[in-house]
């Protein structure tokens, strides 16, 4: 019984690896459309402050502060509402360029997304 359970677990594990592998292949094939990257807003700063991602990547910011912050493009390419604690904002980057952004509530908070 135990042996059968182990075997089933191994099978699931193999299927899992296969699934991940195929996801990677598909991501490359479709210009990485399923790639996602997270940025945390904490202590009045974006962490990481600068990220480099592939074209088509969806970036999600999550506010971990007790105050509202925005994610606002310096070139007016995107602008979030002011997410409260725990709220998220996402944007998919489809052009290869460097996107500077800041918090329009606390403008000393700045960050950058470099899309390759």
């Amino acid at each position: 019984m135990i042996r059968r359970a182990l075997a089933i677990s191994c099978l699931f594990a193999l299927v899992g690896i296969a699934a991940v592998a195929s996801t990677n292949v598909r991501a490359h094939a479709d210009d990485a459309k399923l790639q996602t990257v997270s940025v945390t807003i904490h202590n009045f700063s974006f962490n990481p402050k600068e990220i480099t991602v592939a074209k088509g990547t969806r970036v999600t910011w999550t506010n971990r502060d007790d105050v509202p912050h925005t994610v606002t493009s310096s070139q007016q390419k995107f602008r979030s509402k002011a997410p409260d604690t725990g709220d998220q904002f996402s944007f998919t980057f489809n052009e290869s360029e460097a996107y500077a952004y800041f918090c329009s509530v606390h403008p000393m908070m700045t960050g950058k997304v470099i899309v390759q």
Partner: protein
Amino acid sequence: VGDIIKQNLNPDGIDRRGFLQCMAWAGTGTLCVMQGGVLRSFVFGTDTNYSSALAKTDFAFAQISDSHIGFHKAANPDVTATLREAIAKLNALPHTPDFVLHTGDLSQLSKADEFDTLEQSLKDVRTGQIYYVPGEHDVLNDNAAQFRERYGKDTKGDGWYSFDHHGVHFIGLVNVLNLKAGGLGYLGPDQLAWLKDDVSHLKHSTPIIVFAHIPLWSIYPAWGWGTDDSEQALAYLKKFGSVTVLNGHIHQVMQKVEGNITFHTAMSTAFPQPAPGTAPSPGPMKVPEDKLRSVLGICDVNFVRGRHTLAVVDSTLQAESTAPAAASGASQ
């Protein structure tokens, strides 16, 4: 904290070290009186000179700030309760304030029900009128449209205005809109042009009181505690004999004298923020529950006509039994 007032570059005889000491004690209830550019301080309620200074008051007004209605985190789960306590404090002042200034961050998230709660609470203030300027929390997603609809119907531009009271010229400025990446608070060219024109017809002897949310002096730029183009605004005010600038935003009392201009920031009615550089960020600071009301409070200002005396009194919701940590550093 000791770095905030740097060396005295002006040979104007103002004792900035003495002022710094006053600054450190102001939060515990010190009366700071400017008389002919010389600062005097009295311990709140214990010095007989304090009573005589108040007795000569010509008129008084009060300032409250940073109520953050809607905030409910650990630093203060009930900001409406502490606002009500601040209102009780206002109503118990020795001189009924002719009006009250609210220097911004009425709300936490610019929500209609937050503004509603604030307005409902402030109906209990015994005063003639309440004047407002917005904080960055009041203009989050609509460029201050709701704020102006509620509190700024007779204002100019993005919400700035001025009025006269007993020969004193009051100016409300807006420095929380159109903020630039990497920058601080911002007044903008339109508002600066208006300000220049607004004060151009005044006699140089007219006392001026400016109020705005973000400090108009550079307190700690790394935390955004300053205003990019405040120098230009202050340049228009340099010719006047007595200028007082009242701000909020930093949730603690700080004062500075620079030539003819006295700067002052008020406590919050909601939660404290750390002293500059003493924490990873300027976010809401959690203090032990029994200490909270000793770091929240109100500010009232007593004006004595003919003596160019402005007494600024900060008082906390509850007396603090021990001196603040800043006091030891301030005397060095």
